[in-house]
């Protein structure tokens, strides 16, 4: 017996009095919602993903979109989503694939942390006229500095390891060419160069269009080693080993063959149309000692001139893992929380595996401090950071800097419709279709992303000034500037944050 179909998710309608039949909706929808019949625009709402491309391109604001116009019998346990997932899997017997970040309504810890501000007894700082030090260095720091005097000159004898110099503690995380389009990646590259920060190339190699921005790029290697050769490693300002990803801890990456067009195959150095499979384990890493060997081999290949990061998903044992990474010669540990985005993940992983980034940062910072090795490794936090408030709280919990991903895509037009894995992104971001890709002008995209970074940086300065801090180093790990609001004692203990009023 057939299960039939589930109701449509979105209902599109057109105000026919407003519509002037310019057909932009037809032209812009890559999912085929609109078509022309007898000079009339016909709508197939079932195909809609709520990407909002048609709405934003309509010159008359004539298009309306409503979510889920058909109700099921309400039930607290068997939600609409639970029922529809069962129907979907009963019909196909397959793993449900999903895009973007965790879509379950977990409480967001960031929203239950509040920042401090000065009032009477200590002065706040006005960033309009006082210098605010937001420069951040990512990499190992010596536990002490030693100097020698030489005929009156003082020379530093401590050997410093290479660090990345960031003008703002906001970087753009790894989104590969393949997962996103070249103009999208180029927009980000131009934006980080403008704002004095860095972007990740993802595990897809580096397209030659990014070469002019390579000094602002962190090259990534994953288990599949796509696009990795000695030239690639030497191009990056830093190298990142991807072990895990917040959206899908414990599983690997997989770029489907249909996204491996000629240019992507050239950049990844794999045949046209073949799958690019990076399974979860690096098969040369089975221990921290093995990880140390990979870290050292990357440093050895680049003559110990580049910092090496290790990215892991935020999981239950993250603090102990990070402590191991700190001892592996890595210069930074990247922790990706369970709200992190992705182009494609099994839905069951995206929505159920991992822990929130807030708890992970605090636990890692505390563990490294307790072991006296916090200076051995920088902490980069990512996964669901939405605004400068989240940024400031991340740093106060112990991060040195953050990666943004989804926020940068939204700055390029993304409306978080969650259909990235279909390769039909109407905004030209998560697609390789030439007619869609050309919808992004890298100059305009770069300005939008740069504006976002700049805006957050200004807000961070204001937040720090309000808290009486004029240096990012004074905010880092400063839990005294945070209070928990409606958080249970167990979580407050993990965060090492006191309750409001305390």
């Amino acid at each position, binding site marked *: 017996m057939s299960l039939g179909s589930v109701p449509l998710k979105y209902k599109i309608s057109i105000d026919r009095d407003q519509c002037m039949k310019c057909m932009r909706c037809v032209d812009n929808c890559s999912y085929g919602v609109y078509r022309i019949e007898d000079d009339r625009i016909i709508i197939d709402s079932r195909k809609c993903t709520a990407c909002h491309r048609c709405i934003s391109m309509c010159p008359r604001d004539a298009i309306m979109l409503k979510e889920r116009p058909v109700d099921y019998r309400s039930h607290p346990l068997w939600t609409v989503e639970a029922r529809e997932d069962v129907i979907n899997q009963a019909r196909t017997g397959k793993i449900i694939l999903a895009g973007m970040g965790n879509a379950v309504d977990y409480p967001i810890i960031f929203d239950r942390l509040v920042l401090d501000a000065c009032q009477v007894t200590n002065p706040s700082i006005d960033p309009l006229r006082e210098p605010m030090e937001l420069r951040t260095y990512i990499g190992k720091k010596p536990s002490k500095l030693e100097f020698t005097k030489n005929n009156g000159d003082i020379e530093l004898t401590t050997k410093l390891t290479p660090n990345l110099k960031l003008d703002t503690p906001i970087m753009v995380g790894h989104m590969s060419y393949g997962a996103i389009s070249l103009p999208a990646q180029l927009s980000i590259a131009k934006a980080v160069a403008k704002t004095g920060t860095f972007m990740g190339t993802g595990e897809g190699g580096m397209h030659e269009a990014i070469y002019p921005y390579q000094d602002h790029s962190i090259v990534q290697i994953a288990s599949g080693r796509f696009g990795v*050769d000695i030239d690639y490693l030497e191009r990056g300002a830093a190298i990142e080993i991807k072990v895990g990803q917040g959206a899908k801890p414990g599983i690997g990456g997989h770029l489907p063959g249909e996204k491996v067009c000629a240019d992507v195959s050239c950049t990844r150095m794999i045949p046209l149309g073949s799958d690019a499979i990076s399974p979860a384990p690096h098969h040369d890493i089975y221990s921290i000692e093995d990880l140390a060997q990979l870290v050292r081999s990357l440093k*050895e290949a680049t003559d110990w001139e580049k910092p090496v990061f290790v990215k892991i998903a935020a999981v239950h044992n993250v603090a102990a893992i990070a402590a191991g990474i700190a001892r592996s010669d890595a210069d930074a540990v990247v922790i990706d929380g369970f709200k992190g985005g992705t182009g494609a993940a099994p839905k069951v992983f995206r929505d159920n595996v991992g822990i929130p980034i807030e708890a992970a940062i605090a636990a890692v910072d505390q563990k490294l401090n307790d072991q006296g090795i916090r200076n051995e490794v920088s902490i980069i936090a990512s996964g669901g950071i939405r605004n400068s408030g989240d940024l400031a709280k991340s740093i106060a919990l112990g991060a040195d800097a953050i990666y943004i991903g989804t926020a940068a895509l939204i700055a390029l037009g993304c409306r978080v419709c969650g259909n990235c894995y279909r390769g039909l992104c109407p905004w030209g971001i998560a697609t390789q279709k030439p007619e869609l890709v050309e919808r992004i002008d890298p100059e305009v995209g770069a300005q939008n992303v740069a504006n976002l970074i700049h805006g957050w940086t200004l807000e961070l300065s204001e937040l720090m000034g309000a808290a009486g801090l004029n240096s990012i180093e004074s905010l880092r790990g400063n839990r005294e500037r945070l209070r928990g609001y409606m958080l249970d004692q167990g979580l407050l203990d993990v965060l090492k944050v006191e309750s409001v009023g305390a």
Partner: protein
Amino acid sequence: MAEPLVIDVKGMHYTPLNRMIREAVASGVKEIVLNNVLGQRFIGNGVRGDSKIIINGVPGGDLGMFMSGPECEVFGNAEHAPGNTMDRGSLVIHGNAGDAVAHSMRGGKVFVEGNIGYRGGIHMKEYEDKRPILAVGGTTHAFLGEYMAGGLILVLGIGHEPAVEDRGIGSGIHGGEIVIRGEVSDELLGVGAKKVDFTEDDLKRLTPVIEEFCGRFDIDPTPFLNTNYSRIVPASARPFAGKYTWE
């Protein structure tokens, strides 16, 4: 021809050793002889050029990692992952090698006279004219050619009947080919791998590789040009395409 550079590496750390190799290659030295090698990792790591590095002893892990061009000839065994992410050049090992030999190798050749460990040729891949070759004189352990995306793995099984007895051959393979002398039992094949007929054309195509391998180790190639092989290839270039449904 210039004199070879001879280095006694006894007790030497790998970093100064590699710096010496890089500087020598950059200054035009065509042959470097390393004596008393004992466990130094990353020899030849990221080195470019066309020099030859002779290694007397047992190098440590990741020999020739990211290497692009040189030839390393090892008179001894090698530890794990020689040829890891190698781009061009060759490794010739007069002995056995450990696990993950030729991991993600994307160009050049790795010839191992003896046996190799687990996951040989994992993630090997090819692109256009870069087609890596891993040739093994002896036998291999489980998961040979796992996630292989291109290139050639050749196992001659000298002194071993059958040449390979461990399971998981070609698990997740989606490109390239694995050629093993003699019969390979079906239950040894990994997910996504299939056996196809080994033809006269295949033998003709592989003859230069077999002859080169045998030439490197002074082995008579005749028995290997007059025998049967099993050829294992991907069942699909998209092995997991049917695993998912949309949200």
